[in-house]
């Protein structure tokens, strides 16, 4: 959050919508992506040795996301994660930042829905210092009261500032309406209501229960050998106590029986529109069919129907897209755009038309072939930096995809048929039962929905 406005340098305007397709892969990677090693303490190490550049990138996933927060304490998981780098038994917050900055590296821990994540990037020559810092913040945080107060204040201020951002407000209202009291439905307003009541013991308890080697995935990519990294991890994470593995009860998202419209008034020039409902989990066998379907509908940038219709033909929006966010539990399906107030009704009409079309007419052979060609052909681009490889390795472990995922991927994509697309569109998109959030100047928008 502190770096939000960090760079206005150049004032570059990126014009088109960059297409970061939801997924990986083509078969350029003949050799396995990496090696999976379970350490004695339970940590799962995913290692990809790369010796071209003298640097090491580390990405960790820890089962300490907001889904395992105790009831009534939204924001506790994120706050705990962000406090880890704010002081340990050996180092103050300032010492930690001085040490990592001095070697030109980066170190971070942050919260998430299913997992908290930690990241480290250092030059090879500084690998010991880097891991010493990483293990120290994970194993010996002190959660000083002053640091807690500081983070709470910062977080509340950041939440307040985000109220300036129409996309954030609309997004949160959408999340709340779709997920209700399911953990994915926690919003910054929930967090802002809880944080003033938070006590240090909440943080201590959450840390003690949720942080431990048995729940940790650590992906290491870069200039390091197996022998070197295994012994380094053993040494650095020695004596780290196991975390609990208890799952929390999860409330189901509310049943949405009709079109639910949420109008939020704000004095701005555009209507920010979010439409959708609960989507699919990453582990759903229909995942690949859904990804292709969504690519054609609104995920494929300028190759998508939403973009073609609403931006390219009608000039109604700069950004219009749809997405399925596939997590451990089914995440949201969402169509999203912003347009001048006066065009809101027309835009929603057109989104509805496209949602209905993809559920009733088979996609064309060409659309399907193009989508497959992109999704398989862009694989090398999804793996072209150390950080991207680390992210891929982590996803492979979390969702059980197998180290041969890159090799399997084209077959998974190419197996999908037009009938599959129609079937999954009918099954996972329901225009008659969805949430529509419209944020903007309601007087000008004159919403007919």
């Amino acid at each position, binding site marked *: *959050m502190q770096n939000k406005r960090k760079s206005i340098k150049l004032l570059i305007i990126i014009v088109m919508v960059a297409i970061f397709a939801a997924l990986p892969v083509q078969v350029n990677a003949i050799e396995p992506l990496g090696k999976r090693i379970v350490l004695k303490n339970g940590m799962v190490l995913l290692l990809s040795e790369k010796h071209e*550049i003298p640097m090491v990138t580390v990405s960790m996933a820890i089962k300490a996301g907001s889904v395992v927060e105790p009831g009534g304490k939204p924001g506790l998981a994120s706050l705990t994660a962000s406090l880890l780098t704010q002081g340990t038994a050996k180092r103050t917050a300032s010492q930690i930042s001085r040490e990592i900055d001095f070697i030109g590296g980066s170190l971070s821990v942050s919260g998430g829905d299913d997992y908290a994540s930690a990241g480290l990037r250092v030059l090879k020559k500084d690998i010991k210092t880097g891991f010493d810092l990483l293990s120290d913040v994970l194993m010996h945080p002190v959660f000083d009261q002053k640091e807690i107060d500081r983070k709470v204040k910062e977080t509340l201020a950041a939440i307040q500032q985000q109220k300036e951002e129409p996309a954030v407000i609309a997004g949160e209202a959408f999340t709340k309406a779709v997920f209700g009291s399911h953990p994915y439905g926690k919003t910054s307003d929930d967090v802002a209501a809880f944080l003033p009541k938070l006590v240090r013991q909440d943080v201590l308890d959450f840390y003690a229960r949720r942080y431990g080697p048995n729940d940790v995935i650590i992906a290491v990519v870069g200039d390091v050998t197996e022998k070197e990294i295994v012994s380094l991890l053993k040494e650095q994470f020695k004596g780290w106590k196991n975390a609990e593995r208890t799952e929390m009860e999860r409330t189901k998202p509310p049943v949405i029986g009709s079109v639910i419209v949420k109008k939020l008034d704000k004095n701005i020039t555009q209507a920010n529109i979010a439409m959708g409902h609960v989507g699919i989990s990453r582990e759903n066998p229909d995942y690949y069919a859904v990804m292709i379907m969504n690519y054609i509908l609104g995920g494929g940038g300028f190759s998508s129907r939403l973009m073609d219709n609403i931006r390219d033909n009608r000039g109604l929006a700069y950004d219009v897209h749809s997405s399925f966010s596939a997590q451990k539990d089914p995440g949201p399906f969402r169509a999203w755009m912003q347009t001048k107030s006066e065009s809101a009704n027309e835009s929603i009409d057109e989104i509805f038309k496209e949602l209905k079309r993809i559920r009733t007419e088979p996609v064309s052979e060409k659309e399907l072939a193009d989508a497959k060609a992109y999704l398989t052909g862009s694989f090398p681009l999804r793996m072209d930096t150390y950080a991207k490889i680390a992210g891929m390795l982590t996803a492979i472990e979390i969702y059980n995809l197998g180290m041969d995922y890159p090799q399997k991927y084209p077959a998974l994509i190419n197996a999908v048929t037009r009938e599959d697309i129609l079937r999954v569109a009918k099954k996972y998109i329901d225009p008659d039962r969805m949430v529509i959030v419209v944020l903007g100047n309601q007087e000008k928008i004159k919403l007919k929905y």
Partner: protein
Amino acid sequence: MTRLKKMMVTVLLVLSASASFGQEMKVSETILPNGLKVLLKEEHKSPVVTFQIWYRVGARNEQLGKTGMSHLLEHMMFKGSKNYGPKQFSQVVQRNGGNDNAFTSKDYTAYFENFAADRLEIAMELEADRMQNLLLEPKAFLSERDVVKEERRMRYEDDPTNMMVEQMMATAFSAHPYQWPVIGWMADLGNLTRDDLYQHYRTYYAPNNATIVIVGDFDAKKVLPLVKKHFGSIPRGPEVPKVGAEEPKQQGEKRVIVKQEAELPAIFAGYKVPTIKHPDAYALNVLQGILSSGKSSRLYKSLIYDKQIALYAGGDYDDVSVDPHLFYVYAGVMPGKSTEEVEKAIYAEIERLKNDPVTDEELQKAKNQAEASFVMSQDSVFYQAMLLGQYETVANWKLFGQYLDAIRAVKKEDVQRVAKAYFTEDNRTVGILVPVKKQ
């Protein structure tokens, strides 16, 4: 994450990677007879390639009442050329597993395609076609102009901080076109015509006003002939009009207040500074690191951590620029704190840089950060190409090869000297966002 934030992160990465390559740049330079410059850098660590074409045209080359032309033209470059009609361009790229995009700044307009290594020639075919044969259909123009207006609404009209920064820039420069926003003023967008764009296209889109940068997994010996095949026969264009504008020396602080519906106040102060073509650029970059790089940096430590008066704070140096631009310092005000207090605290850090030498540790840290960025930036072929393109377009890519050595040579006294020389009240333009509640 809005796309805007993504954009900022991207730019930040570029910034922190400012030190790429060092001495061993391994770049080959060729200038074709039609004036097109070609920079090739083989990088075999991953089977991908980036193709970029950089045109020397941006907001700097526009006119009063016709701002936003370069950026709108960039949009139109995706709306069809002779061999790749409307809707074709990105579809061809995507069908080949590629990603494409473009960006416009005050000084340049750049287009790129990222592909698996074996698809490189497709990028050449597409770019060569739209360099000479853009359709600029009147109907597509009108619709795309609306798209850009939506983009402006999203990025500026509905974002109070960006609006204030836009005003600050418009205030800082009086004689130079850097006062204009790259996206253009709203009314100007409405007045732009298809013929304006056609004229702009014909004036600036020619081989002699462009640089091609290719970085990735290819064999330069095989790729150069391909570049020649696709671009070699494009005729040289007329000499590009010079921009004669020169910003006069500022004779006193300028302030601009923007009152807008917003949650928290913000301050952006810009000091006029020289570009990378000037030897002081290196000391200014070291100073930027000390002031703003990481949580141990002075602004973070003082305003955010110790005093807890700012939600965010930092400093950026716009050094890769054709004409002198700004060094910005900025902060967002914490709830309950006053703008005056935060502004004073920023200047206190500036004064410290002028009055006392920085510590040995700070100096070394800034140099280590530059060095680490240099190494780490080699992880991405895209950023390597981006840096080469930027440097070549505003100055000369070879300048980039000297960067790290020049940073290593910076002394404490240099940092103090440039702080004194440029960070004066008279040389400062300040923008303040004052939140108001509208009825």
